[in-house]
């Protein structure tokens, strides 16, 4: 069972979009396109957020992006992850600094993402250390990694042993829809991986082991109602493949990185930005993930969310690196906003945990 990407990373293609500054220029209508969307900060000011400022509530989720290395190259990836991103991997020293912060502060959840985080050589050790600190661990697992190499085959047992909550992308119960976004063969491998996770108890009633799936549109449309999609996915995956899962998180595609490249290449950038703007929902602003999350990069820099991380928009606070982490200071920061933020406030809103409004 092998997978074949339909695209390459922007980095490998030497695309100008692999430069985060260039992406921000595009989003602000100063490069490639002159499409100007109203400033996000101004839009939320009109929605009642004084001075267009968004503040955190409380940091409850410590999201660690351990690197850009991945066995897949998905067409919409906001990380520009792929098999060629071998250099960008979190070091043991930076993991140690993360653990020091987790020891010091009562932040209950550690959300591990990538790339394929399991490919980082320190992944299992980090999970064990976090568990020893009593943290709840989420792993954003792409499923196919479980079948990518012999050394990953026992991951389901490892996850179960440490009660790791698994969050996995599966954009559709239809193979063609899934493979069009994630690469040929990904659907079949994902179903096989789901079976392996189900076998050790994931998604089974009363096991306490949670596997949540992430739905995101395989194109330029917005996700429909999360609850209705979840019911449909559960019925179809059970009927067609006999696999089960706990919840479906519907996430909107963010107009950055490879999805931005797709929008520009297909001539749909303007239409998509207008779709996001038309669907702006003031009620979704309150629940966006940057309000209760801090995001750490493989190099240890701090961001409001994984999307700001990928645009290299560091936190607006005196401490911008994990070695200087100070919870009180960070909880008083203003969240860094830019035009991509419309992606999290469209329709029912979007976060790493799905819809928010």
């Amino acid at each position, binding site marked *: 069972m092998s997978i074949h990407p339909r695209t390459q990373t922007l980095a490998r293609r030497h695309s100008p979009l692999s430069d985060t500054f260039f992406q921000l220029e595009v989003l602000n209508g100063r490069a490639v396109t002159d499409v100007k969307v109203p400033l996000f900060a101004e839009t939320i000011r009109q929605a009642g957020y004084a001075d267009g400022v968004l503040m955190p509530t409380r940091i409850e989720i410590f999201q660690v992006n351990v690197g850009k290395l991945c066995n897949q190259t998905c067409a919409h990836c906001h990380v520009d992850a792929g098999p060629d991103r071998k250099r960008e991997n979190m070091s043991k020293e930076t993991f140690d600094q993360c653990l020091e912060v987790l020891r010091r502060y009562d932040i209950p959840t550690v959300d591990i993402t990538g790339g394929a985080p399991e490919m980082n050589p320190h992944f299992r050790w980090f999970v064990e250390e976090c568990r020893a600190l009593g943290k709840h661990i989420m792993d954003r697992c792409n499923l196919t990694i479980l079948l990518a190499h012999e050394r990953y085959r026992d991951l389901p047992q490892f996850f179960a042993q440490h009660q790791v909550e698994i969050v996995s992308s599966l954009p*559709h119960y239809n193979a*063609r*829809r899934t493979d069009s976004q994630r690469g040929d063969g990904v659907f079949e491998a994902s179903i096989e991986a789901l079976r392996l996770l189900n076998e050790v108890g994931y998604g089974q009633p009363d096991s306490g082991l949670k596997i949540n799936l992430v739905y995101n549109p395989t194109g330029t449309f*917005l*996700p*429909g109602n999360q609850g209705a999609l979840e019911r*449909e996915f559960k019925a179809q995956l059970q009927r067609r493949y006999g696999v089960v899962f706990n919840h479906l998180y519907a996430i909107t595609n963010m107009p950055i990185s490879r999805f931005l490249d797709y929008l520009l290449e297909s001539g749909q950038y303007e239409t998509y930005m207008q779709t996001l703007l038309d669907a702006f929902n003031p009620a979704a602003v309150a629940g966006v993930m940057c309000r209760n999350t801090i995001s750490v990069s493989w190099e240890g820099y701090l961001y409001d969310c994984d999307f700001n991380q990928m645009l290299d928009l560091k936190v607006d606070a005196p401490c911008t690196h994990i070695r200087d982490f100070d919870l009180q200071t960070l909880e008083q920061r203003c969240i860094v906003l830019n035009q991509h933020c419309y992606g999290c406030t469209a329709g029912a809103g979007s976060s790493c945990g799905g819809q928010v409004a």
Partner: protein
Amino acid sequence: MSKKRYFDPEDLKKFGQISEWQKPMADKFFAWYGEVFKEGALTEREKALIALAVAHTVQCPYCIDAYTTTCLEKGADEEQMMEAVHVAAAIRAGSSLVFSTQMMNHAKEMTM
């Protein structure tokens, strides 16, 4: 206002403007329309697929664009959407063919 062509996709965005010339009726229509497409005994996805099929029968380009998008949003895939259109097409074809029974009756009366 376009004078050169019918069916400008941009006109779909103006649908709400029909209330400018007859508000009470338009308000009732849009309220009813919204209610129709809410999840009920049928799911939103099923209703979107029915709408897509009907759109092909009434050959409304606006409706085809709108319900292609809605079907995708509601999680329908290409197979489901094409099957829905085949249902519409089959009824259209069948509704022509079934009249051939009249042709047959009439021809039988007239021939030896």
